């Protein structure tokens, strides 16, 4: 492309997005951290230096060194390997929560907006009531009924996450209903389900992506909190929250376990939040106009 044409043609779509994304250092840093965490999680079965669950009583509480890069825990398990597998566990739980919350929230929000009436009122009041409970209280209720474990984490976090997505979807679909292409589809005799899924959904996906990306950091933190309290991921599976708890009693003599897991957890959530904030600032049209 010649220099003159470059001046005249405003970059659009993905090229424009990429240019502005690269111009936001915090978003790039967030992306790098997230990419690293996801890479480690995906490759953990192959790159972990040892079996994450193999105990070795001859090497308990080994300090970080040549044999064990980040030392060992109370059962002589390799901390680095457990951190790597912990990343996979944490991200899998977060993805499951978001997938459930997105599907349920979008379906409820779209149906509420389209049907209106009592169904709309029912969905929105349910969302209001869910909002009125502090997140951890919902998790405690679920944990009391199901017992601690991964299903408890996923169910309780999905329970507190879907109402926000349902509210967002509802308001977006309500404004889309007045668009000409929706009227056209109705006149053509298209079924409501088809209108919602084929005509409306593609228009709200960007907003949902932003919403979800801002939420990942929260979900990762909530999972770690529940695992720290003992309500979440159970042994022998490693979780960063659980590792921090296991290391606390030995903080005086062997702080490496808690501090390593705490660093991994803190940096990962910072990464997700930087990336989420960056995506929101770049993709949210209301903020762009300012």
């Amino acid at each position, binding site marked *: 492309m010649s220099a003159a044409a470059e001046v005249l043609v405003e970059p659009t779509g993905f090229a424009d997005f990429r240019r502005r994304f690269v111009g936001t250092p*915090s978003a790039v840093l967030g992306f790098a951290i997230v990419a690293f965490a996801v890479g480690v999680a995906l490759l953990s079965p192959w790159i972990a230096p040892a079996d994450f669950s193999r105990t070795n009583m001859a090497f308990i509480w080994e300090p970080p060194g040549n044999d064990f890069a980040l030392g060992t825990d109370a059962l002589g398990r390799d901390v680095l390997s457990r951190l790597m597998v912990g990343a996979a566990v944490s991200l899998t739980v977060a993805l499951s929560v978001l997938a459930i919350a997105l599907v349920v929230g979008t379906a409820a929000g779209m149906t509420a907006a389209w049907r209106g009436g009592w169904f709309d009122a029912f969905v929105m*009041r349910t969302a*209001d*009531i869910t909002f*009125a*409970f*502090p*997140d*951890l*209280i919902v998790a*405690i*209720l679920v*944990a*009391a*009924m199901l*017992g*601690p474990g991964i299903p408890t984490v996923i169910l309780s976090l999905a329970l507190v996450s879907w109402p926000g997505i349902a509210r967002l979807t509802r308001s977006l679909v309500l404004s889309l209903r007045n668009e000409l292409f929706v009227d056209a589809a109705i006149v053509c005799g298209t079924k409501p389900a088809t209108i919602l899924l084929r005509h409306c959904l593609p228009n709200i996906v960007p907003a949902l992506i932003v919403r979800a990306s801002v939420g990942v*950091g929260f979900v990762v*933190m909530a999972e*770690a*909190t529940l695992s*720290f*309290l*003992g*309500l979440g991921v159970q042994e022998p599976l490693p979780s960063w*929250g659980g590792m*921090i*708890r296991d*290391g*606390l009693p030995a*903080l*005086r003599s062997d*702080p490496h376990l*808690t*501090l390593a*897991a*705490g660093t991994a*957890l*803190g940096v990962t*959530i*910072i990464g*997700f*939040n*930087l990336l989420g*904030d960056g995506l929101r600032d770049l993709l949210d049209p209301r903020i762009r106009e300012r």
Partner: protein
Amino acid sequence: MTAYVLRRLLGLLPVLVAAVVLTFVANRFVPGDPITIMLGDQGGNAVLERKLRSEYGLDRPVTVQFVDYVAKLAHGDFGLSFRYPGVPVTQVIRNALWISPSIAAAALALAIPIGIALGVVAALRRNTLADTGIVLVLVAGLSIPNFALAAFLVWGFALKLGWVPVAGWTSWRHAILPVVLLAIPAAAYLARLARTFMLEVLQQDYVRTARAKGLSERLVVWRHALRNVLVPILTVCGVIFGGLITGTVVIETVFNIPGLGRIAIESIFARDYPVTMAIVMLFTFFYATINFAVDVLYGLVDPRIRLEARR
């Protein structure tokens, strides 16, 4: 104003009803029969079993149990504990009742001035190194879970430097780290909002007018801008309090503080459902009350909100 307050009060009703029904259902439909667990070795003792069942009201129809549950709740009676047979729940949690709200209130009192100050300073120095630095610190403060940060602070300030006690709950010095740790994410959240609101307010016409008539920058910020930032900040204090409640559960576990949060977690593992559910009710009640108070205050300072609610 009275109509507005009544309307808000009415809005609390479905939440409390949901809390009552959910805790009742959770209490009755949890895995395992509590009486069988309580009896333990004396499983064959039919007389004792019948006595316990009637003492806990578990020998009556579920509907009667529910009415009884609601009636007792209205009198502040949460029933009997499973872990300590025959002991009322109120006695188990009595000493812990004010610990969590006090820690949360102290943290909020610490977080509000610090958060607003940081946010306003960042907004006034927009796009300078100070602003960027503050924004990065705020992201970190919001992102790092308080139990992870707690580990670092305990290791540094309690174990290495010995400035504060490691854990426990016997002197005011034991409260320092817990309150500071709880205040950090709250202050970071407040500061982010204060920064955004301040940037918005500084572009308003009345701020330009105030500057144009020659007011000093200090008067413009303190008298004209800050006041309008404080009102929207007030509304998020309810949300923040919800976060602080979650925080106390975690922090009490880290620092071995005998508050409601730690008892709630212990009761889950001890299968002491009545105690768990009583604490769920109390936390929901605290949260609803705070949100109600915030709504009323908001209506008092901003007449537009009262009118909006009437429609």
